[in-house]
C-alpha cells in the first residue's frame, strides 16, 4: 500500500503546534529556556492501520497544569484527574492529526484510548506501550517544544514486525 512520503518529524511538529495552540491555547516560546524542567506525566496512544505504533506525549508539571486550566476555561488549579484527562486528550488529538499527515487522508487508523502515567519513567519504559506490538518498535520522530515556562516532549514510534 503506497504511503505519502512525508518527514515524520515535520508532521509531528505541525500536529503538535496545531493542538497546543488551538486545543490548549498555549503558544510556543521562541527557544527552549527550561530544558531541565522535569517531565511530570506521560500519555501514550497506540494506533493501528496501514502501519502500527504509538504516540507519546510528556509534559512538565507547570505546562500540564496551565494547559488543563486553559482547556477548562478556569483560573483555579485543576485536579490531578483533570490534568491526566487533559494530557490523554492532547495525545489523542495530536495522534489523530499526525497520522493523516504521514499516511495520507484516505488511510484509516484506529486509535486506542490514551494511557496516562506519571513521571519520566513512563517515557522510556518498554512496558509503556499501550497495545502490545507484535515486533520491535522504532523511534520515527521526536520533538521537544518549549511551552510557557516548561516543555513538552513528543515521540512517535512505529512497530517493526519481527
Amino acid at each position, binding site marked *: 500500500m503506497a504511503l505519502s512520503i512525508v518527514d515524520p518529524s515535520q508532521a509531528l511538529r505541525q500536529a503538535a503546534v496545531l493542538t497546543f495552540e488551538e486545543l490548549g491555547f498555549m503558544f510556543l516560546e521562541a527557544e527552549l529556556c527550561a530544558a531541565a524542567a522535569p517531565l511530570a506525566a506521560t500519555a501514550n496512544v497506540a494506533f493501528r492501520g496501514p502501519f502500527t505504533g504509538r504516540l507519546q506525549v510528556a509534559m512538565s508539571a507547570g505546562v500540564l497544569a496551565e494547559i488543563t486550566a486553559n482547556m*477548562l476555561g478556569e483560573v483555579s488549579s485543576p485536579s490531578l484527574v483533570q490534568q491526566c484527562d487533559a494530557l490523554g486528550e492532547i495525545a489523542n488529538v495530536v495522534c*489523530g492529526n499526525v497520522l493523516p499527515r504521514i499516511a495520507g*487522508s484516505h*488511510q484509516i*487508523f484506529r486509535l486506542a*484510548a490514551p494511557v496516562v502515567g506519571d513521571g519520566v519513567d513512563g517515557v522510556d519504559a518498554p512496558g509503556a506501550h499501550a497495545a502490545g506490538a507484535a515486533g520491535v518498535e522504532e523511534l520515527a520522530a521526536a520533538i521537544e517544544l518549549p511551552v510557557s515556562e516548561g516543555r513538552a516532549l513528543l515521540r512517535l514510534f512505529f512497530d517493526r514486525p519481527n
Partner: protein
Amino acid sequence: MPINVLVVDDSAVMRSMIIRSLKLGGLPVARVHEARDGQEALSMLEDHWIDLALVDINMPVMDGEEMLNHMRDVPHLADVPVVVVSTEGSDTRIAQLKALGAEFVHKPFSPETLRQVIIRLTGVEQDGTFDCGPVAGAAPGGSLDF
C-alpha cells in the same frame, strides 16, 4: 426555541470544552446532558428529549460510529441531528459518517466552527447571550441547565 444537547465524549475535559464552546457561541441551549460513551448516550436518548447530539468517535464500551448506526436503526432516534466531534483524519471514514447523516467537526476546533455547523444543521439562531465564565459540567449521565 432553545434546544437540548447531548455531549458524548469519554474525556470530561473535552466535554467541558464543548459545553463552553456552546456558551461562547451564544446558541439557544436549554439543557446539556453528558455521556461518557455510546451506550450511556443511547440510554440518555431514551430517557430525555434531545435535539442535538455532539458525539466523539473513539470511546470505550461503545464508540460513536456504533452509536450512530444504532440511532439510525431506531425510528424515534433516526432523525436526531448528530455532529461528530473527533480527531478522525480519514476522508474515507468521515464520508462514511456523513453518509449516516452526521456533520463532522475536526479536533481541535474553534467555538466559531462548532457554532456554524450547529446552526447549519439545526437551524437554531444565536440568542445574543454571551457568558465567558467557567462552565461546571454535569457529571456523566447527568444534565446541566444553561
